[in-house]
């Protein structure tokens, strides 16, 4: 049900370590915001776009992933045309699109596991300070992945109950029962986690 946006592949970008990719993304976003020159932003846009489209996604998949964001960027650019000088609008669009391409490329080439290792690393200072435990974050993430299909089944059951009674399916009448039905299990799940000693408390 929840399949990651990672795509299998053997491109060189797949082999770059996650940390390097994330640092590059951060560096790129800072660097691109320091310049307004189209001469610098256009190559950045082309390179990032070329990178994204060379990852092994089909053209249709690749555009579906970023289509909505590009649509928003273009709508805002259309508004900007009336308010901001033209060269600046071009610079803004190129910069944002370059960043979106690069970010989408990082997402497409990094597995959930690799991201989680990085998150654990980033959380280690907090862990040392005793603010939270990285293991808890992983546990919570695992719980989400585990329970989304269950909650979706609750949602379908409630929709069918609506249909059986000839009621229209509206968020208003679905959300209440869905939340109560789901959160009611919290105690049982918590007891099951503690019984297995997952959190070593």
């Amino acid at each position, binding site marked *: 049900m929840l399949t990651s946006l990672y795509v299998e592949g053997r491109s060189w970008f797949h082999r770059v370590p996650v940390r390097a990719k994330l640092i590059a993304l951060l560096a790129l976003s800072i660097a691109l915001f320091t310049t307004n020159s189209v001469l610098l932003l256009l190559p950045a846009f082309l390179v990032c776009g070329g990178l994204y489209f060379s990852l092994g996604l089909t053209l249709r998949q690749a555009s579906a992933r970023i289509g909505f964001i590009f649509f928003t960027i273009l709508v805002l650019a259309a508004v900007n045309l009336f308010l901001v000088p033209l060269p600046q609008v071009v610079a803004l669009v190129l910069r944002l699109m370059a960043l979106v391409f690069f970010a989408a490329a990082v997402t497409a080439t990094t597995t959930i596991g690799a991201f989680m290792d990085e998150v654990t690393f980033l959380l280690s200072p907090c862990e040392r300070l005793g603010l939270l435990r990285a293991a808890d974050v992983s546990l919570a993430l695992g719980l989400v992945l585990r329970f989304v299909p269950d909650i*979706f089944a609750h949602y379908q059951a409630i929709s069918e109950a609506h249909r059986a009674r000839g009621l229209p399916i509206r968020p208003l009448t679905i959300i209440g029962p*869905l939340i*109560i039905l789901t959160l009611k299990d919290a105690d049982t799940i918590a007891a099951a986690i503690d019984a297995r000693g997952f959190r070593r408390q």
Partner: protein
Amino acid sequence: MNTRDLVLIALFAAIVVVLGFIPPITLGFIPVPITAQSMGVMLAGCIIGARRGALSFLLFALLVAIGLPVLSGGRGGLAIFAGPSGGFILGWVVAAYVTGLLAERIIRPGISEGRQFIGFFLASVIGGILVLYAIGVPWLSAVTGTPLLAAATGSLAFIPGDFLKAAIATLAARAVYAGYPLLPARA
């Protein structure tokens, strides 16, 4: 944090994921479709309170960042944060916190039903609309270069839909509060 709070945080994040599957409502007089997912912020604050609600959305933002297509329409990934509306995703965390803080202050066990409705609605409007836009709009303006005033004026198109969301969230939160109250058990 005890295990029950951790489970509630995770379950609520999972609920928000599922809300993304509910088909959006389109209303003739409001130009933007209303997705059930964007009601999640108000619901989280009003139902599981400030701290757990905010952590739930932090977890949700993490799901988006590590590349799970959890946003409505199957969107996700780091590109969302790089795009114009990245501020709204991060704003959800603060918005859930403020909504929860207000709901916890206003809703007391003894108060009348009418006051509960008013309380949940106020918390949803201030936290889920005011605070959210106060973070999302300047972010959008900074990222896209659209002047702040124009960005704010453009966002007005979403406001009627947001009030409707606050109303639905109020009714749902009150139903959950009556059926299975979690708000008083503060984390």
